[in-house]
């Protein structure tokens, strides 16, 4: 509509900010249980309709971030196809067998398996695929379910910055602010190990009483029984054995990781079609298509805000808050990203921080790298505070509980409040020592 009027820059900035704020508020509160994708795309649509961003600019923004979209596609397809091969079921049974009938050792193995899956398949795979598998396993073994579910859910995020591919958030940020693989590993690998260690340690302490028993190993089915099609399973293992080093090599050579993920998924899909394990339609059902709308909408909304200069101001504010020191950059970056991710979800926060980070490109290298690493760290680990959604979701759950309405998810929040601030602080401190 505003295409027909000449609007002063101030009003344009005000309107853009208002639409962006409403979009973020919508994502936080999700009125009428609307899907986040619908809200983000609605916000982008309003901005386009009002002429606050040109279609060409919006298209350019989306094309510029092709690596992110493609990575999401490849990552989700890879996990879904590996699930079709029953790889995760097989790994779950192996984890139980190696536990030697001890509930505590099984708990530890679930953590280790979750770490491995998050590292190579991203946190989505651990949270979405491993969790139900572990639920089935511990139900069959007649063990208390809750500690194991918590282990899966928390480790998904705690182990999601071991490698660039361990969380799609990393790809969103690295696509615009590339870090050499060695720099990434130097800054984030050891903090990740520290965070995983703290997570395991605190959980063992919290659940020590419930995990003292043993289970009957005879209740476990054999790993071979979990595999529905041996040839496709072996083929999947071979493909993943190639994909894992390819990820590392691509990260080292700054080659787009999305290409590796999609290539791996295509190879798995070819195998699935060949052995009739999944059709194209079935494979597509394992992908959350709304995520693309969510990211696309957020990219356009944040791009519009970027044009108003607001994100530059936010970048300057962060720099001032950091006091121009590496320590400040790490702490402010971590706290800001973690807090924001709990307010508005980690995808919008990462997209927003991408734009903010672009405005501090003149800062010294240490501070810049500190902010980039801390942003990934905060956005990846932050969701563990309110695992079941944003702070708004938790507040809503608390209100419901106050009204004696049956709610779930609050137990996650109670544990998250204990463990997450500690992990954030210890990880940030380690990162600072390594910067």
């Amino acid at each position: 509509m505003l295409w027909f009027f000449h609007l002063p820059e101030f009003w344009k900035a005000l309107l853009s900010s208002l639409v962006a704020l409403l979009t973020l508020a919508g994502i936080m509160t999700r009125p009428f249980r609307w899907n986040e994708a619908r809200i983000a795309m609605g916000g982008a649509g309003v901005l386009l309709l009002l002429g606050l961003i040109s279609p060409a600019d919006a298209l350019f923004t989306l094309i510029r971030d092709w690596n992110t979209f493609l990575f999401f596609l490849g990552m989700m397809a890879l996990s879904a196809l590996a699930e079709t091969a029953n790889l995760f079921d097989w790994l779950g049974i192996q984890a139980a067998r190696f536990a030697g009938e001890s509930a505590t050792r099984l708990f530890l193995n679930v953590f280790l398996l979750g770490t491995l899956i998050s590292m190579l398949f991203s946190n989505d795979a651990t949270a979405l695929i491993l969790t139900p598998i572990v639920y089935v396993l511990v139900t069959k073994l007649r063990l208390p379910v809750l500690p194991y579910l918590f282990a899966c859910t928390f480790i998904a995020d705690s182990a999601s910055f071991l490698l660039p591919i361990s969380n799609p958030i990393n790809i969103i940020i690295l696509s615009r602010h590339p870090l050499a693989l060695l720099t990434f590993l130097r800054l984030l690998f050891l903090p990740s190990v520290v965070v995983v260690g703290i997570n395991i340690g605190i959980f063992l302490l919290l659940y020590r009483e419930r995990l003292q028993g043993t289970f009957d190993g005879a209740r476990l089915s054999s790993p071979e029984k979990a595999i529905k099609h041996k040839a496709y399973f072996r083929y999947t293992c071979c493909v993943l054995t190639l994909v894992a080093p390819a990820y590392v090599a691509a990260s080292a050579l700054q080659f787009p990781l999305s290409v590796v993920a999609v290539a791996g998924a295509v190879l798995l899909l070819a195998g699935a079609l060949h052995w009739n394990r999944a059709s194209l339609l079935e494979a597509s059902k394992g992908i959350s298509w709304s995520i693309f709308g969510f990211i696309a909408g957020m990219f356009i909304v944040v791009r519009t805000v970027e044009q108003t200069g607001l994100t530059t101001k936010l970048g300057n504010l962060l720099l001032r808050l950091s006091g121009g020191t590496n320590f400040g950059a790490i702490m402010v970056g971590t706290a800001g990203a973690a807090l924001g991710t709990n307010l508005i979800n980690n995808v919008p926060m990462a997209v927003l921080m991408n734009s903010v980070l672009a405005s501090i490109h003149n800062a010294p290298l240490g501070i810049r790298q500190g902010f980039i690493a801390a942003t990934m760290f905060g956005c990846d680990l932050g969701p563990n505070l309110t695992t079941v959604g944003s702070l708004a979701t938790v507040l809503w759950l608390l209100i419901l509980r106050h009204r004696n309405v049956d709610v779930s998810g609050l137990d996650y929040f109670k544990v998250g409040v204990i463990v997450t601030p500690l992990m954030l602080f210890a990880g940030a401190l380690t990162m600072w020592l390594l910067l």
Partner: protein
Amino acid sequence: MRILCCLDGTNAEQIGRVGEMLSATQPLTLGLLHVIDSRPRKDIDLIRERFLRAPLHPPHRPPPGPPPHHAPPPAPPPHHIREEEMSEAERASAQEILNEGRRYFAAAEALEREGRPELEIVNLAAEWRADLVVVCSRAAYQKRREIGPKSVGHVARFVLDHAPCPVLLLRPLARELFPIER
């Protein structure tokens, strides 16, 4: 006398002993109840929602009309297969727990429910017209605090507070912890 015995998967023997004691005095009608806790499933759905995925428990919607006979049924998406596996594991485990209870009370009525255990117990106690509910203070896979403020778990505590009939709370023997300091 109608007695509702709550089985949690770890207490069949304990409840069995009590049942034998009670049945020596008068004829009993026994109900063995096991509740599949639905909360972990709801939590899993919340996590899925965070990752923008459909819940494993899809809301029930009646089909709009009779299904066409010629069209083959669509293949279920992977998360529906997981949903089936989870339900199957829950049902198998519940059956096993009820069968363990039947070892002590062959003629007892087996009652299986799904939901929040504490709510299902008190509601069924009323519906089944129980004269007594037998419940253990805590599941035994947990190291027990035999006495003290945390010795009664939240399920038993809720049943004590809300049951429509007398409740028999089974606690572990803890004579060695006495006397309590006066």
